[in-house]
């Protein structure tokens, strides 16, 4: 398994797509932090919700809130990048025909797929750590302009470790759904289309949150979507670093699933997509490039 992960890492780390995605991801993070900074620096006196929003942005640029900003970026736009990355890592093996080169040498398909998934998650972990480090660096540089110091409590570091793990956990079902769709369609574009469509549809479904008022099946269905459950987990990351998004957005915390449910539902989705991917990959014929 370790040998396979080393081989996968060599492939992914040399692939231009990986570096393009990482660069874009980090540039957008920097842009987001700088925009928040620009909006808050020299902030005129405002009142009510507007003031709360500006205060929230300010906290998101300072320590330890900057960590929450980075982790929110990982679970926001980062999700889209993760889907593209995962679809590329699996789909290109079909389009280039390299999957046959590998499996003709080592027929343990389950091990091969698990090594690929582990490498994808390792790469996403590396990107998340880079994002956190970059955000921290920017936070250090911007703090004096906002008249704030740089102080990180031991508790923040513990929260940071938990936060990074939580952010990766949130990405897992999207990555696994994309992997499953890519295997199903044997194509990068197929995986990409399904992965991104799900994110978009779920975002659209989010606007139908009012359906919860109808109760019963509607409320249950809404409460069991991946998006609704990861909302709980991403909110935990924000709260851990002192951000309070519920003060600036119409977010009813009582309607969110509990952390336990959220963790369980995300695990169930991930396990389901992993099982389907493994089953499909093990039983299907591997034919020529598409």
């Amino acid at each position: 398994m370790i040998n396979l992960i080393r081989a996968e890492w060599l492939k992914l780390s040399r692939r231009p797509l990986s570096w393009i995605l990482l660069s874009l991801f980090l540039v957008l993070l920097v842009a987001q932090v700088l925009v928040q900074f620009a909006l808050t620096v020299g902030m005129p006196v405002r009142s009510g919700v507007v003031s709360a929003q500006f205060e929230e942005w300010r906290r998101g640029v300072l320590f330890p809130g900057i960590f929450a900003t980075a982790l929110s970026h990982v679970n926001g736009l980062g999700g889209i990048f993760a889907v593209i990355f995962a679809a590329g890592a699996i789909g290109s093996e079909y389009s280039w025909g390299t999957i046959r080169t590998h499996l003709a040498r080592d027929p343990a398909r389950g091990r091969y797929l698990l090594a690929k998934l582990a490498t994808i998650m390792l790469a996403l972990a590396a990107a998340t750590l880079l994002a956190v480090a970059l955000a921290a660096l920017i936070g250090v540089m911007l703090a004096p302009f906002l008249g704030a110091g740089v102080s990180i409590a031991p508790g923040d570091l513990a929260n940071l470790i938990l936060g990074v793990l939580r952010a990766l956990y949130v990405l897992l079902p999207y990555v696994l759904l994309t992997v499953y769709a890519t295997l199903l369609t044997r194509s990068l574009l197929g995986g990409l289309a399904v992965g991104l469509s799900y994110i978009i549809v779920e975002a659209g479904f989010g606007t139908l949150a009012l359906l919860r008022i109808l109760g019963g099946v509607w409320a249950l269905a809404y409460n069991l979507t991946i998006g609704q459950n990861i909302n709980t987990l991403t909110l935990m990351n924000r709260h851990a670093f002192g951000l309070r998004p519920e003060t600036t957005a119409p977010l009813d915390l009582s309607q969110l699933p509990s952390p336990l449910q959220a963790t369980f539902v995300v695990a169930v989705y991930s396990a389901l997509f992993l099982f389907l991917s493994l089953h499909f990959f093990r039983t299907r014929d591997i034919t020529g490039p598409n």
Partner: protein
Amino acid sequence: MDAVIRTEELTKRFGDRVAVDRINLEVRPGEIFGFLGPNGAGKTTTIGMLLGLIRPTSGRAFVLGCDVQREAATALREVGAMIEAPAFYPYLSGRDNLRVLARAAGLPDRRVEEVLAQVDLTARARDRFGTYSQGMKQRLGIAAALLHEPRLIMLDEPTNGLDPAGQLEIRHLVRSLSGSGRTVFLCSHLLHEVEQVCQRVAILKQGRIIAQGEVAALLRRGVLVRTIGERERAEALLRSTPWVSRVSAYGDAFLIDAPGDRTADINALLTAGGVPVAEIRHYETSLEEFFLEVTTERERR
């Protein structure tokens, strides 16, 4: 001696289409075995089943004594393969492509350098695979197949897209592999290529094996005798001759099994019997002619 590859009624259907139909193959250790057939005959599907990539609909395949369906990992441990076009990562160099495979198999990088040298690619090893010529791609494919020093090498159309010089180079390489004690399973639709390097062949057509055996035995050799009319009398005379062991019609002539130094005697025999002779010469069919003969025979039936 155990067969290196053996199949029993191996069959693959894709929906209603039968791609491979109850084939029984036997490849012996150390030989270069040619697997012949026109495009779409089922060669690549058969290789796919031998490598565990494609599941047979029925029948069994044994590679190096192991059932591919049940013990794929053991069966394929000592098999190197290049299936159709060599498939590698276009953004990686030739060397890095091999390093990916070497790492996955737990092989040292030293082995990568060895196979690069073996296929004469060391000088271009740093270049991206995407920039390679077709010949270089094929050589890299063979290098990948050799990486873990397999006992059995399966090459699917290894000279595809190569110029005559490139084809010759690959043929030399295949011969040298066999010379080092490996078994080579060579899949091709190029009959002259197979004829030049293989000891035994199987001919596949529309998923079925229509001929299998030693190249020398499949190819027809003998003395070609063409007369001017008088065919019946000529045939009777030839059949009554003790040193002629077989007489068969071959187009408008006869092909007979007779010692090569008896052509003058044949001429004398026929002339004395009142049969005018137009042509007597040694004759040997090419694999191409044999292939056309067996495939058209089958179509006629």
